[in-house]
């Protein structure tokens, strides 16, 4: 994996596997086969433009402490897989727009969110837009929030479709820990906090690269 520090506002990346760092609002033009991993504590807004015939896997982890905007633009014949993880502290709002302006794309938007603090509030508005005069696009929004305490998460899954040649789905679940899983882990001798920590890790880290897992685990261990 290439560690990349981006200091310019606009950057173009081609085929590769990148662990990226940057310090302010950034725009990325991406082309080719790319995997981008990023661990963010500064909550920089993000714009991505995915070129034709590209394949992007996005693993972005945010320790949220302010509002955030993410805009993704997809052109033609491309595959976009996102894995967004939000560990929220405070009262914050995230707006995600996925704009499909071309044809023959597959987009899988996966998002997992938790509140780290008891009094936190998180609102997520995720909007997938498929513009008119496009065809053969597939869009799936898979958005999940887990509330380990008495905090609040609101997720609005929106799909705006302007063509009849598209397959678009969204699913949202928000809830607390699965009681059957908790009971199972406790019958193996784990205490309540340990069992919940493992379930949080399970919720957040499935399919996340090892480099990011280590950083997230340290955060996950400390929840109220």
């Amino acid at each position, binding site marked *: 994996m290439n560690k990349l520090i981006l200091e310019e506002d606009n950057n173009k990346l081609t085929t590769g596997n990148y662990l990226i760092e940057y310090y302010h609002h950034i725009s990325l033009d991406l082309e080719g086969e790319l995997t981008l991993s990023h661990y963010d504590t500064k909550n920089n807004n993000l714009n991505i433009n995915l070129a034709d015939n590209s394949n992007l896997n996005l693993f972005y982890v945010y320790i949220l402490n302010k509002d955030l905007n993410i805009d993704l633009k997809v052109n033609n014949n491309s595959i976009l897989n996102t894995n967004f993880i939000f560990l929220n502290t405070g009262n914050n709002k995230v707006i995600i727009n996925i704009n499909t302006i071309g044809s023959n794309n597959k987009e899988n938007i996966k998002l997992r969110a938790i509140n780290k603090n008891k009094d936190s509030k998180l609102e997520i508005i995720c909007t997938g837009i498929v513009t008119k005069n496009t065809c053969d696009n597939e869009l799936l929004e898979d958005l999940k929030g887990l509330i380990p305490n008495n905090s609040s998460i609101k997720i609005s899954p929106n799909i705006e479709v302007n063509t009849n040649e598209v397959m678009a789905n969204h699913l949202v679940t928000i809830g607390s820990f699965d*009681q059957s899983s908790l009971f199972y882990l406790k*019958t*193996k001798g784990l205490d*309540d906090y340990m069992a919940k920590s*493992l379930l949080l890790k*399970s919720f957040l880290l499935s399919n996340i690269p090892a480099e990011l897992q280590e950083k997230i685990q340290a955060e996950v261990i400390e929840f109220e």
Partner: protein
Amino acid sequence: MLKITNLNVQASDKTILNDFNLTINDGEIHVIMGPNGAGKSTICKAIFNHPDYTINGNITYNNHNLVGTTPTDISRLGIFLLNQNPIEIEGITNAELIRNALSAKTGKPIDIFEFNKKLNEVCDIIKLPKSFVHRDINFNMSGGEKKKNELLSLFMLEPSFIMLDEIDSGLDIDALKVVGQALSKYYAMYKPSMLIITHHPDLLKYFPDYQVHILKDGHIISSGDKSLVNKIETSGFEANVISRSKQNE
């Protein structure tokens, strides 16, 4: 010794176990059979103080009162539940679960070398590919694989009291043989007490001796030695209950 006296268990205002009594001495194997809906699986969950149940009565294990005790503490007393449909948890590996459970039980950090060595030995005993150690808990496994996977935890945690809740359901002949032989070996190695809940006698042939109880309407209506299993298989639960009732009269 596990001792259950005057146990009443309710869920959502429905009585499931009613005046249930059972004593299992150290090293004894007891089998509970009975028609569907008799409350067999509830016994195991009640022993583990499942939060969905309202439990009245007494359950003690080696003089520890289990009613009101957390599932965590009940597990740490050496009680283990292996049920018919083990839950799947994506994102937590078997090794991770067992390592945490062992560390919590002993209160000491785990010696990774010894831990891995024992995991490998157990995989050989239960004929489980070693790659399963690093797979997520029961995730994307077949019914037979899940049962074997649970045996991995059993052998690693070395409980002194084991509850098997219809673990033979859904197993093909080969898988049943592997599970039966593994449990038989565990019994020979550690002499645990066992409570086996089953509909079928096939699993029982792996154990030398046991007592059998028939559960109906939430309590035991008939008990006997292992020969009772053959009678049940031949003539069903109802015939045996009637026959026993007449003997008692």
